[in-house]
């Protein structure tokens, strides 16, 4: 842990960055995001099992950008988010410093985008094992069973959009749900509107979801909505052999094509 | 310096000369060659002609044994064995399902991590770099380097030298003072496994190779495969009979030529065992 703290300290001290985004212990015993601008406060930085939130979401927030150049504590999903954000021109590589943390919780020196790319290449990029099990179970269900499952889950949705707010890839200044000419998604939190919203979200994240699972964690009513985007990530890999967030020059799966893309349902 | 070796059946029998020259050369350069323990035959042509699974299982057992004994790098001097082992490694790598099946058949843990090297690669990596100051008798002869089929094909699997007009052996020969000739029959087939069952075909094909090399003024053919050697050397009477001529061109293993150049004796490298007399020492 000393490495992470000392590196953060060094970066702030030398004014190489103006803010360090990391985790600190919250009052309830949970970890919460920390935005440290004062080098003397870096001691409060922690990293342990509690630190699961995808911090990359803050990189596109106006309030955070205001600080200037940022260093960010980054686990694999966060690194992949950063790659996507750079690819989609939302974050500029020269404006961030990555403080890498390995799967074992060890500090890793990420000296630049290329190093990060090499590191990501060594990692397993599939969905987390726990979610893979659930996905496999769902995939075995009949169409009606699946429909019933999701209808039951989605009926709980209160349209709070926490899933969207927590997702680093949902950075649009205006979301499609806020578009009212036409009103694509019914405003009310009813089954129809909820279903449409979650389909829209999953489609918009196809080829962009980096399987961090933050949306599911953020949901106050425990809808496993992360399974929708993770299923899409699975399929993107299955059909196009692509994992999102592996380089800083990702060409988006949905805006590119190969003439010989395989499908079996178009007559 | 210690590396594994899989000699294969020929080297213990009809290619004893090759075996002796490989070990003599290794000894001269302080390389310890450790045999894959209790190795079996690779199955050769017969196995893959008659049964695919057998043809993969026999080499897989050898490779698994090497793995088990911690031999990360294994020299396979016989080009035929080398080919069988390399092809098996490739096929099992490409087909995990087959890999499991073969693993079951041999009842051993097979991972496919062994690095196989043929004799030229071995010479390239361990002999040539240490050659400086060692050459006591430059091999001042015109040589026709004969690679045969199994060292260069299938190129995509072996990924060694170029399939047409390979160069590695020629370069090694230049290093010991020899003069490699332009030789278009470098990779033509000698007749291979038909030696016993269809001797006349071997006589015809091997004869073409010898005739062309003699015609170009070679002092000796240089080979790296016991099967080629036996066809070109032991089958010489049949060749001469078929071609109604009297080819006298000797056939030497690449290790023998290098051995002589670094001061080993003709006997050290087993030249006395050849059928066609070698007037080179």
């Amino acid at each position: 842990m000393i490495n992470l703290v000392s590196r953060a300290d060094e970066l702030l001290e030398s004014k190489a960055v103006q803010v360090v985004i990391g985790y600190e212990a919250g009052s309830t015993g949970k970890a919460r995001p920390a935005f440290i601008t004062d080098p003397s406060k870096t001691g409060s930085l922690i990293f342990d099992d509690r630190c699961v939130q995808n911090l990359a979401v803050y990189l596109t927030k106006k309030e955070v950008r205001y600080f200037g150049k940022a260093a960010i504590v980054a686990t694999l999903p966060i690194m992949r988010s950063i790659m996507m954000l750079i690819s989609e021109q939302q974050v500029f590589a020269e404006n961030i410093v990555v403080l890498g943390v390995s799967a074992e919780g060890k500090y890793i020196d990420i000296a630049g985008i290329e190093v990060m790319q090499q590191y990501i290449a060594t990692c397993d990029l599939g969905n987390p094992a726990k979610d893979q099990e659930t996905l496999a179970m769902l995939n075995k269900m009949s169409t009606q069973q699946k429909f019933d499952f999701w209808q039951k889950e989605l009926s709980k949705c209160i349209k709070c959009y926490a899933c969207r707010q927590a997702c680093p890839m949902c950075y649009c200044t205006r979301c499609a749900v806020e578009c009212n000419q036409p009103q694509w998604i019914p405003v009310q939190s009813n089954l129809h509107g909820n279903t449409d919203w979650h389909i829209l979200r999953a489609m918009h994240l196809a080829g962009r979801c980096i399987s961090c699972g933050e949306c599911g964690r953020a949901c106050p009513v425990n809808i496993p909505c992360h399974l929708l985007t993770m299923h899409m990530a699975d399929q993107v890999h299955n059909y196009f052999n692509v994992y999102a967030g592996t380089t800083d020059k990702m060409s988006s799966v949905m805006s590119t094509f190969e003439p010989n893309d395989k499908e079996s349902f178009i007559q | 310096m210690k590396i594994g070796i899989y000699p294969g059946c020929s080297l213990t029998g009809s290619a004893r000369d090759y075996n002796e020259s490989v070990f003599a050369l290794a000894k001269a350069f302080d390389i310890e060659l450790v045999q894959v323990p209790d190795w079996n035959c690779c199955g050769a042509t017969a196995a893959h002609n008659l049964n695919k699974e057998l043809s993969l299982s026999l080499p897989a057992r050898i490779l698994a044994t090497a793995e088990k004994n911690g031999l990360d790098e294994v020299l396979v001097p016989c080009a035929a064995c080398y080919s069988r082992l390399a092809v098996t490694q490739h096929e099992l790598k490409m087909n995990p399902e087959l890999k499991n099946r073969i693993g079951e058949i041999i009842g051993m843990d097979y991972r496919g991590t062994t690095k196989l090297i043929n004799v030229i690669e071995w010479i390239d990596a361990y002999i040539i770099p240490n050659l400086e100051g060692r050459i006591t008798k430059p091999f001042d002869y015109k040589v026709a380097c004969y690679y045969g089929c199994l060292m260069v094909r299938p190129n995509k699997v072996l990924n060694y030298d170029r399939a047409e007009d390979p160069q590695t052996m020629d370069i090694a020969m230049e290093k010991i003072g020899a003069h490699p000739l332009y030789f278009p029959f470098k990779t033509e087939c000698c007749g291979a496994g038909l030696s016993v069952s269809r001797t006349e075909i071997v006589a015809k094909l091997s004869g073409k190779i010898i005739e062309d090399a003699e015609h170009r003024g070679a002092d000796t053919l240089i080979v790296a495969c016991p099967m080629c050697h036996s066809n070109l050397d032991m089958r010489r009477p049949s060749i001469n009979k078929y071609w109604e001529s009297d080819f006298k061109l000797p056939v030497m293993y690449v290790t023998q030529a290098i051995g002589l150049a670094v001061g080993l004796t003709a006997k050290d490298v087993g030249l006395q065992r050849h059928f066609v007399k070698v007037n080179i020492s």
Partner: protein
Amino acid sequence: MARIGVFVCHCGENISATVDCHKVAETVGKLKHVAFSTDYKYMCSDPGQTLIKEAIKEHNLTGIVVSACSPRMHEPTFRKAAAEAGLNPFLCEMANLREHCSWVHEKNDMTTDKAIDLVRTLVEKVKINSALQPIKVPVTKTALVIGGGIAGIQSALDIANTGHKVILVERSPSIGGHMSQLSETFPTLDCSQCILTPRMVEVAQHPNITLYTYAEVEGLDGFIGNFTVKIRKKSKSLDEKICTGCGLCTTKCPQKKIPNEFEEGLGFRPAIYVPFPQAVPNKPVIDREHCTYYIKGKCKVCEVVCPTKAIRFDQPDEVIEVQIGAIVIATGFDIKRADFFPEYGFGKYKDVIDGLQFERLASASGPTSGAILRPSDGQVPKNIVFVACAGSRDPAKGIAYCSKICCMYTAKHAMLYKHKVHEGKASIFYMDIRSAGKNYEEFVRRAIEEDYVNYIRGRVSTIYERDGKLIVKGVDTLLGGQPVEIVADMVVLATAGVANHGAEELAQRLHVSYDSHKFFAEAHPKLKPVETNTAGIFLAGACQNPKDIPDSVSQASGAAVKVAALFSQNELTREPLVAFVNRTAPPLYSTCVGCFLCQSVCPYQAIEREDFKTRDGKIIKTVAKINEGLCQGCGTCVALCRSKSIDLHGYTNNQMYTEVMALLNEY
């Protein structure tokens, strides 16, 4: 408040036989905002159109739906009528009651109901249509032709002859291209230079053509009618205005052993040189890579001998920027060289040559003055073998496609050889003889029947050398795969035609697409073979795929007509059915968040970046912007845009949504 007019056409009885047109007009007439509704026998007839025009004026209509045949048939007709009545043409929609309803369904209530639904849907759509103005773009009436081979020459001349200015850029010191290297041409065996050189001279003398040789295109900006091109004129180390082209320098240059590109390496040239005697312009350039002065710092023999003192050793490259309106790419092709083929000796046999080398040997102005002689010893080959498909139709080591021209030139080569070496033996290994073309098959038959060229169907496995002869190991598949061995004196490989070197870089610089073989890609393989995906850029000749001379010339003229048509107007008018990115007040500027995924989805590079800056120039936000000159209106970006910030005129999100809602719901 919308006031919509609906006009239901009977189309004689074509519609009314199955659809109750009167009922349609009546039902739709009752809809909200429908101010006028009627049916009539022939809406497209003069009286029908007059009816519409009068109704527009009389009822002060804000939109009309003509319910008749397919819009692909009569949309222009009715939009024109609307415009004549003072209604913006894009406020006219058509419901397809004929092709999509009356002609394909039985006469019953359901069919009439469907007709009503179709009309209703378009009534709802037209209510939210916007009046659109055609897009006008000025046209700079100067064309750029890249490449001075036969295709480029033909294109340049054709465009120049329509009275427009042309800039012709050629990379090498002379125009002429591969055609100038050829000896005779199939199927007539007329001399290539004799028919080409007059055209080369015409280019040089044409008042409308500016010729830049030894020059390359470095960059391109803009769009159709309004391009800016950057051209690098490489230094020729010579003042062309003073040089008289006397050639004294070229004879005195001490550096004489540079392989001659024009002779395909079969001859040599000095460092200051004219590529060939008939070159245009016929003035030398200094090849700085090989010139002794540039290498060692001294020599300057040419400067000393030049009678007009035209040599300029310190002349720099010059980069110029020119405004142009259209581009013809005619950069030609290249061939794979003999050293490419492992089994044919990696190029180490001197007497295994490629097709272009044979052309030079056979050419009267070539290194042997037209005698067929072996490069190794200058002897006349008595037995010659031609290998067709050397690298073509060979996915493993060469290219998968057929190079198209080799069958014909190989037949020609064999014939030329037989005409020059009467006692010689010529064999051709081939896979198929592809001789589709006027008088082509007859030509091949002549080679076989009159000149006794030995055609053997099969490929060559290997070639090796022995006692100064080449042993060619082939096969005769018509004999069931019987091996054939020929002891030859010389082998000519009909090597594959491939994209010219530098084609890929040029394509990227011009923003036009190219295929996996690096040939330039046409906009449509059947219907737009001359256009590229980028409006205003056209293709001519073998830069698209290997072509023979007649095909190249035809396409060059085709491209020229496209350019001339473009230049026939002062302004380009385009349908305004293009995409647009919304704009809002600061500080948002647009709901576009600038992810630019639309850029990669656009087939026309029509999406640009727009920066919004503070007064001191700091970028606040970068958003997408549509270049209306380039957008073709496919709308793929619209469906992709997550924040719904892009939309498409004529097919807006709101319009399409409304159509769906209207079709499925009864209001």
